[in-house]
């Protein structure tokens, strides 16, 4: 019997020694491939309770996130904006690689909650209603910025951030930058680069840069030559006083493509 015990201990020690470097290497590879990035800390423990935390630790992060998202949806139906924000925070902590959660959380805050705050009949002061609206805009922006930090390898949240900056903050310079960052990704839609140019055109002091960018896009070919681009280019040529010979209408026609 004794030799079996010795053999079992030896097997454990040797197996463990062989396993350790493999586990370490796998953990590093997983981190590099954006796996296992969730930080399950005390703060999260307090937000989701003991049972939820145990579930998250036991490999049920995504089902738990889904259940909390459904809870957040129920909170939306009851227009409980504060509760929704808290739940979104927890869901995005549990599933930081899910673009849907970041995107929807931001949309609910910056669009739905912000409008509700502005139209809040219980708040007689317009200044305070506007203040509350701005706070929800900021919350929406914060979700997207944190989402980008967790997903720097994907373009989608840059696009959403650009839209938010354009439509809610009316910060065209920042929106242009965000569109431009999205456009750098090879799988980003073609409109990202175009929208970056449109927003830059509205950014004071950057009209010339915007014109150059949009002109370069126009030269890329038919797929970028949309009426909105052409109209804006013509308008800018007039505003910037571009010589007639350099205007797009004087440019040679592109060869016909199939």
């Amino acid at each position, binding site marked *: 019997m004794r030799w*079996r015990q010795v053999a079992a201990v030896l097997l*454990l*020690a040797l197996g463990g020694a062989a396993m350790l470097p493999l586990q370490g*290497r796998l953990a590093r590879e997983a981190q590099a491939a954006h796996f296992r990035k969730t930080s399950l800390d005390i703060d999260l423990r307090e937000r989701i309770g003991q049972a939820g935390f145990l579930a998250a630790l036991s490999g049920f992060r995504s*089902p738990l996130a889904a259940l909390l*998202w459904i809870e957040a949806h129920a909170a939306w139906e009851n227009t409980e904006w504060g509760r929704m924000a808290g739940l979104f925070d927890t869901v995005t902590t549990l*599933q930081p690689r899910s673009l*849907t959660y970041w995107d929807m959380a931001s949309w609910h805050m910056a669009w739905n909650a912000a409008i509700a705050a502005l139209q809040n009949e219980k708040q007689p002061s317009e200044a305070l209603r506007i203040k509350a609206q701005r706070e929800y805009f900021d919350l929406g922006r914060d979700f997207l910025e944190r989402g980008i930090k967790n997903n720097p390898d994907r373009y989608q949240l840059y696009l959403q951030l650009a839209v938010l900056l354009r439509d809610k903050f009316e910060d065209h310079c920042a929106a242009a930058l965000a569109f431009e960052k999205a456009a750098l990704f090879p799988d980003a839609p073609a409109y990202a680069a175009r929208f970056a140019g449109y927003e830059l055109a509205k950014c004071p002091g950057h009209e010339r840069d915007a014109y150059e960018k949009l002109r370069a896009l126009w030269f890329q070919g038919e797929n970028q030559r949309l009426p909105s681009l052409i109209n804006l280019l013509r308008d800018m040529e007039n505003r910037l006083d571009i010589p007639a010979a350099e205007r797009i209408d004087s440019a040679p026609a592109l060869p016909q493509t199939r």
Partner: protein
Amino acid sequence: MRLVGVVWAIGRNTLTELVRQKVFYFLLIFALLVIGNSAFIAKLSFQEQFQMLKDISLGAMSVFGSLLAILATANFLPKDMEDRTIYTILAKPVPRFCYLLGKLCGVLALLAIAILLMSGLFLAVLWLRESTVLAETREQFVSASPEDLALAVKEVTASTFNLNLLPGILVIFIKSALLASLTLFISTFATSSIFTILMAVALYFIGHLQATAREYWLSGVDVEWWSRLLAAMVSLLFPDLQAFNLTDDIIAGTAVPLKLFLGTAALGGLYIAIYFALAALVFSGREL
């Protein structure tokens, strides 16, 4: 070759026995969960719908796979002793490790079938929901340009099935197989199936935490030799189950590099082999 035949016969009988115990009835619960969830989430946006469906379905697959692995494996040794079938088998020229290997193969076959059936059901529901959403999208874009329609369709299909789900499902199987092997090891020295189940469930939870503990022990510059030895013992005694939790991030759209998938599969294979060797070692000296 004779031993392969022995293992095959025991494995087949184990599978038949487990199927006769109506273990596949759990699929009804899985089906209810997936289809019920799918009906409930119909009012959400399509991105949310597909995300929820994948979250709940793959999470349920992982739970059912793990439970099935623990419960099916914990039961067979005490049951064979109670029915006295083990004595009949071992009275023949059947080495004890072949008996264990046959039993483990039977449980692994059951797990493979169960996970295949669950995957089939999940993919069918996913496909059905995708078809519904696509039909709705086509209706909404009836007056739009073909380019806009193609873009919308692409967005819908990108949110549903992606090839990364397949390695995710395979990893669920590997994790269940590891748990079966670990439970088999516990059952070789346990005195009852309740003890085996409790131990396996406890190890399941510990296994999910061991990576955090290992990281803590091995962080820093001057790590003592005994810390390394302790970490090595812990990393084997308690399997690193976090290493098999790839599905959470796969659902979120993260692509699995082939190297990472193969490394995870190799780690699973190593654990299964070591736990099985330990089980065979302990079982060879057990008084029956």
